[in-house]
């Protein structure tokens, strides 16, 4: 894109350009906010057109989306409750992305994490709640972590593409869950919906005081901040980013790439495993097929929209949590099918990826000094 002087975009850029250092320093950051923001607006506009085709008023749509997501304290709580697992499953895609891997199996790690956490809780009915909860977190991390480590190991040692293998592992994980829930682990009392026994009310992790938002949100925030520090402020994270940038250079300077990949995959799967544990210990109280609610798949979108930055994942997860929270209101007030949230997510994803082409091409951000 060549920059014409009559370009209106150019005129906007005149003011900050008075200080050329400003744009040079922050141009990239502004780009990282501006371009996904523009993609989001474009996606919302497209979705508005889409519902207009079905005779709904797009302005009503935006109003109810805002109402359902952020309009009231009730909808904020709903949004934050949904954001919690999204932060964790997004980390499952974002962490391996630092190493240049595309892992999309967060849903599988979530299911296995939930299953492991439930099994541990059911195995120790004598223990005090705090012990049970700690054991559940550990089991969730280990279960989910090993699940994604498998995809990482297959890539490193067998050259199996990790995108495909991690997705296949989602379906295998779901089958394992259904098999156990309808067989060995089934609560005979669950007739309509086969489930495991409940982990018990005492072992539930409950809500953050003063709200209906469960403690899973705190788990998500801690995991996101910890990941940020790990990736950007530790030697381990630096090595991971070096290996992600140029794997040959990393090998030449003697980094153990295999070990890095396995560890990152374990942490990634562990994050999604905690999401599963949280869904059990804060929402469902047991394991059943309800857990496969698609948080793992929405998490992929969150990670891409946040450009795999662990801190950016937090606001993006809240945004997408809000979109899914507004689904109910859209259904009741506008008569839109529940799948409209999926359509919007798909449109956002497409727009965000297409906007990748814009980086470094916005005239006024080039910082001419």
């Amino acid at each position, binding site marked *: 894109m060549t920059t014409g002087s009559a370009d209106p975009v150019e005129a906007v850029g005149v003011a900050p350009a008075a200080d050329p250092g400003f744009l040079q320093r922050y141009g990239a950051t502004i780009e990282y906010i501006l371009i996904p923001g523009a993609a989001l607006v474009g996606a919302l506009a497209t979705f508005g057109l889409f519902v207009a085709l079905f005779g709904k008023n797009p302005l009503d749509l935006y109003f109810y989306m805002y109402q359902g997501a952020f309009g009231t304290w009730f909808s904020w709580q709903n949004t934050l409750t949904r954001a919690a697992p999204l932060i964790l499953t997004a980390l499952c895609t974002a962490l391996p992305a630092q190493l240049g891997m595309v892992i999309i199996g967060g849903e599988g790690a979530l299911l296995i994490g939930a299953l492991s956490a439930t099994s541990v809780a059911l195995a120790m009915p004598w223990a005090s709640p705090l012990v049970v909860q700690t054991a559940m977190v550990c089991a969730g991390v280990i279960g989910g972590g090993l699940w994604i480590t498998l995809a990482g190991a297959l890539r490193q040692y067998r050259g199996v*593409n990790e*995108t*495909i293998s991690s997705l296949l592992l989602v379906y295998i994980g779901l089958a394992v869950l259904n098999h156990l829930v*309808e067989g060995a682990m089934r609560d005979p009392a669950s007739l309509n919906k086969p489930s495991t026994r409940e982990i018990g009310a005492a072992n539930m992790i409950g809500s953050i005081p003063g709200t209906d938002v469960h403690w899973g949100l705190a788990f998500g925030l801690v995991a996101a901040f910890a990941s940020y520090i790990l990736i950007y402020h530790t030697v381990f994270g630096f090595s991971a980013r070096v290996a992600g940038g140029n794997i040959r250079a990393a090998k030449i300077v003697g980094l153990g790439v295999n070990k890095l990949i396995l560890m990152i995959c374990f942490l990634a799967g562990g994050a999604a495993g905690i999401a599963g544990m949280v869904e059990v210990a804060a929402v469902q109280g047991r394991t059943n097929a309800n857990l496969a609610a698609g948080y793992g798949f929405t998490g992929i979108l969150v990670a891409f929209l946040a450009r795999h930055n662990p801190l950016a994942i937090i606001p993006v997860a809240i945004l997408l949590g809000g979109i899914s929270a507004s689904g109910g209101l859209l259904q009741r007030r506008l008569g839109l099918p529940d799948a409209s949230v999926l359509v919007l*997510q*798909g449109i956002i994803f*497409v727009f965000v990826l297409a906007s990748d082409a814009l980086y470094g091409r916005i005239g006024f951000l080039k910082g001419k000094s």
Partner: protein
Amino acid sequence: MSDGSLGLWTVPLAVFGGAIRVSTPFLFVSLGECITERSGRINLGLEGTLVMGAMSAYGISYLSGSPWLGVLAAGIAGAMLGALHAGICSLPRVNDIAVGIALMLFGTGLAFYLGKPLIEPTAARLPAIDFGWWSDVPQVRAALRINVLFLIGLALAPILYWAFKTTRWGLLIRTAGESSDAARAMGYSVLAIRLRATMVGGFLSGIGGSFLSLFYPGSWNEGLSSGQGITAVALVIFARWDPMLCLWASLAFGGAAALGPALQSVGVTSGYHLFNAAPYILTLAIMIITCSPKRTLTGAPAELSITR
């Protein structure tokens, strides 16, 4: 009575019939993806295309009363999703794997949205040819009721094999896939070749989806496809981008997928879900055996991002 006389023979028979029935969507998606990947691009979005194809076929068949119009509509819907994939991938610095993931979500979401009113009504289904007329045994007859789409797919595999080898179009697609520089030097637009290859791939995958909703299982619901699309994409990799191997692999997969229902029909119900996951476990196992970290796969198009 015939149940008793057949005994355990019911299982292999049902697996055989199932292999033919269940393999058809695998076959179409893998042949379509084979064309796309040979041109140097991978479209992971075919899972979404499959579901979208199933929904469009069911809707059009219901509205028009003609299942074949439904098949055509499914193909067109698939080709449009393919065009979208190729269009976005043509932009600079856009990763084709990520676009595939996006279209997987988009295609499924759109199909669920548009397909909401189609869950109740019954649409006209595709006819089947009865190759089992000579037999009195109902299971044999059921196994040999073969759909025309399967026969089309059966014919398509050798035709594609031949086309890749000898025709001008086959050569162009392969050139774009092996070396985009060479294709450019010959004066062809790599992007245009890949656009067409992805659209044809989407067209075939859409048709594969129409089989799901119009023949087997033969209705539209949101659980219709669970990973058949992505399994078929993986299948192309270990079929070494060879259409004939895609055919055999699809049949093997269909057989694996039919194992669960077949065992259930003779009363083996434990492990039902695990048997249903057989195609995914099989895919993973075959990928583990056939891939290698040391060398790129033989027959892999050099421009393909997934093997580099």
